[in-house]
């Protein structure tokens, strides 16, 4: 079993919503951080982490084990989750 899946999202981003719905529909448990809703310090920390992982600030970011998926990409989600 891989580590708990983590999603970095924006509360207003439609692709983030689609990714979360995809995970929900497939009964996949995950932790979601809505980066735009964090306070300043927590937001800076989250953005640093996202930049370190992806080299940019683009959403959603899904972390499944060693795999980092940027953007709503159902094929890659299926692959990483072995669905």
């Amino acid at each position: 079993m891989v580590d708990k899946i983590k999603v970095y999202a924006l509360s207003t981003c439609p692709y983030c919503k689609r990714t979360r719905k995809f995970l929900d529909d497939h009964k996949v448990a995950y932790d979601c951080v809505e980066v735009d809703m964090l306070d300043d310090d927590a937001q800076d920390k989250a953005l640093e982490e996202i930049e370190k992982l992806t080299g940019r600030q683009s959403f959603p970011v899904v972390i499944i084990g060693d795999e980092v998926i940027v953007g709503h990409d159902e094929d890659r989600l299926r692959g990483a989750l072995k669905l």
Partner: protein
Amino acid sequence: MNGPGAERVHCPVCQARFRMPGGKGIGDKVICPICGQSLVVRPGQDGPVGERPDLGTEAEIRERVDEYARIKGYSFNEMKEEVIQGLLGKRRRFGDFYCPCRMHHVPEYQCPCKPTRGGDVDRDGKCYCGFFWKK
């Protein structure tokens, strides 16, 4: 302010100063040709300024993006309604219609954002949020 093109209107959305359309003046409704925003022309300290008559409403953003797409010849896809909901969320939470897929809430990311107005759609086929598409 009599010569052709002498009178310009300031757009509070994209910050452009566009030429007053022929026959229009103070109190008239005009469309910003740069971002598609509907404006009512008001007198300002440095010349006419556009006022957003439907400030912050769903009608305002829908009219703006439809008008911008019309001006540029862009189209929308099946994400349109979801992106509009995101724009409305930005307005509610962060004060104005900023790109729903971007982290930062700065004037240059007022939809249609500066990179879009600068040619992203023509170059990449779509804008950053996948809202406006090249036909």
